[in-house]
């Protein structure tokens, strides 16, 4: 156990140390600026649970050797369709959330199948192809959101054609996970705020991580890992490389679909049209911050990365607003940090001969 923890810290190379230092500085600053630190911590936990599954979706793709899955929006779109169908069926509460997942998962499996087929044909250029297939998918579904025959008045524009840009989930499955068994420590009225633990959300995220952990130790999971680690060795030992990559891609797509539903329920809204465009980048950045590389990733990378990256976003916004008037410093730092970490990871792959 102790060596495991030690490993965890030796894994922390320069960019991660910088991020940890930056985040701690921000937290200390927040405390001295009189911001509700416990409230911020609550937000951080919420965002960890909400965004965690989307970041976890990176793990199977990287482990299977497909690389950073910039095509995450494809899975996200499936999740969104599931969420919309659940509202169209007029469901609410936990059942609505379950129905959304039940619709989204088979859909994502199908899309993942096609996506995996494509990625198996473009080995070596997966990231670029995936990015643009994702972008194209999002803009194609922009047309889809206008044309699809959804009728529910909560979702369509009162006048004109098509679905709204944001659809409120209040009365449907807003915060069904967040508010499940949640409890509060401390006094919400105090200067530091109160810490609310979103038990259901964290349990859901934990369950997903556990499932992934179990899968990676199953026969299929080990095969997938071998394929990703060393395709040549996998071929000589009679494994089907394309099959392993296919499984990784499908799993990643399915997790993306589930992940966006978990995100939406916590956020309280479904965002359509161009909103999913850059979610893939955010997830990629998060797992890289957690210590993954283009070729190696673990569940702990996903958890640590989500916590650090989302934590940074949560804390930087109020602190930036306190320090500097005007400008959109929080959004700008998100752009710089997330793309900076991706560039760093790409430059570490080698090829600098």
């Amino acid at each position, binding site marked *: 156990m102790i060596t495991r923890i030690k490993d965890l810290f030796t894994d922390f190379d320069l960019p991660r140390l910088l991020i940890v230092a930056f985040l701690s500085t921000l937290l200390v600053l927040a405390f001295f600026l009189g911001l509700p630190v416990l409230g911020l911590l609550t937000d951080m936990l919420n965002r960890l649970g909400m965004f965690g599954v989307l970041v976890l979706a990176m793990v199977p793709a990287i482990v299977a050797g497909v690389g950073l899955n910039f095509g995450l929006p494809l899975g996200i779109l499936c999740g969104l369709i599931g969420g919309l169908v659940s509202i169209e069926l007029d469901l609410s509460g936990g059942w609505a959330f379950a129905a959304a997942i039940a619709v989204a998962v088979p859909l994502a499996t199908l899309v993942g199948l096609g996506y995996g087929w494509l990625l198996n044909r*473009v080995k070596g250029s997966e*990231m670029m192809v995936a990015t*643009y297939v994702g*972008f194209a998918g999002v803009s194609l579904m922009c047309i889809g959101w206008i044309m699809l025959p959804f009728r529910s008045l909560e979702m369509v524009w009162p006048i004109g054609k098509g679905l709204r840009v944001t659809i409120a989930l209040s009365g449907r499955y807003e915060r069904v996970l967040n508010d499940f068994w949640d409890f509060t420590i401390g006094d919400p009225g105090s200067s530091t705020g109160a810490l609310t633990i979103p038990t259901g959300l964290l349990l859901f995220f934990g369950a997903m991580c556990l499932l992934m952990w179990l899968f990676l130790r199953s026969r299929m999971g080990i095969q997938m890992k071998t394929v990703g680690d060393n395709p040549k060795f996998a071929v000589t030992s009679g494994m089907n490389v394309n099959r392993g990559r296919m499984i990784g891609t499908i799993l990643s797509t399915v997790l993306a679909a589930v992940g966006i539903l978990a995100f939406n329920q916590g956020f309280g809204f479904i965002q359509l049209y161009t909103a999913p465009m850059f979610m893939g980048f955010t997830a990629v950045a998060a797992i890289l911050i957690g210590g993954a590389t283009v070729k190696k990733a673990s569940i702990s990378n996903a958890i640590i990365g989500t916590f650090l990256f989302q934590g940074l976003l949560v804390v930087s916004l109020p602190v930036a607003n306190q320090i500097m*008037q005007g400008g959109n410093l929080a959004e700008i730092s998100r*752009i710089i940090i997330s793309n900076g970490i991706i*560039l760093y990871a790409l*430059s570490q792959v080698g090829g600098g001969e």
Partner: protein
Amino acid sequence: MQNQKNDKKELDIDLLEISEVVKKFLVANMVTMVFAILGIVGFMFSGLSLPFFVSELLIRMTRNSFLVLALIIPVLAGMGLNFAIVLGAMAGQVAVIAVTHWEIPGVWGLLLCMALSVPLALVFGYLTGKLLNKTKGKEMIASLILAFFANGIYQLFFLVLLGGVIPMQNEVMILSGGVGLRVSINLATSIKDAADHIWRLSLPWSALSFSALTVMYVGIRRYLNRAKKMEERTIRKHLVYVALVSILALWSLYIMNTDSMFNNIRIPIVTVIAIIVVCIFTTFILKTKLGQDLKTVGQDRHIATASGIDANRIRIIAIIISTILAAWGQIFFLQKMGILLTYGAHAQVGLFAVAALLIGGASVSKATIGQAILGVVLFHTIFIVSPLAGKNIFGDAQLGEFFRAFVAYGVVGLSLAMHAWGKQIQAGNSLKS
């Protein structure tokens, strides 16, 4: 009798050959053909009049070709599609912002912009080249992410630091809070139409002069090469050129004597000349020693290194040229627009230029000037007609707009995938043999 039979046989073989050639041509130019058809169908459904469409297309061609041409050299150097021309566009915009702040109008403002953007583009291009040398084989995704990253730095500089940490006094350009530039900046006091308004000719006259120049070019080429026996292909190409421009000339002469709307279209000659100069520059540089090295590096980096070429240096030079051209391209683009969207004008530059080049028939490893120009024509045809066509077909202009975004992203994805797939099949074949 015997003769007739032979003739028939030959004819059959000819037909077979022709169908084979046509088939090859269609397969090789599939993307371009599809977009040509899409463009024509879209135009028919858009209900636009031809003169209006041509005028709109010419505006976009003179505005955007420059940026697409900036992509060619990195492609030939084997670095793929340089999405980081966004950095070049930023360099251009920094210069435009400075010149607008100093209120230097007209041609001098434009020239100053171009001069100012060069050192910036040099630095940006050098850094981009350094990064792309560290990410060999993943240049495109790296240049794409770099463009996003640079956009963050750009925003940090102009939205947060300028006016605050970096002092600047300008009530027109700075936000009312005193920090950060406004979202849109009017260029009327600086470079608006600086190049376009120097000299403009009506479309028929421009077409006529273009025809005359082309005939002169062909004549001079033939005169200079009169001693050498020219290749069959070159002769055929020249004949086609002359035939095409003759038709164009006849058409212009006809239009001149009518009161057609085409007579009202004005061509900004100086901008067109600038574009032609870039074309000539690109052709010229590929014939120099540097250009040969560049192509060698593009074909095979290891062979290039083995024959004593510093591949990394050549790659950096290619990116620097591309970045400078992009900076100038963006300056020309902005003088035409007359307004600078401070935080948006550069964002889509890479995507649109790359999509145009690919639609013109280029790929990750091959690009020509002709493909760039053809691509601009086809891509912007789709851009002009799709909102109206969308409205007329589906009753919703927004659909057309989404469709053209889909087209831009889709064509990049598709052609990257097809290129990678082709490479994989090739690698598989070479393994088998």
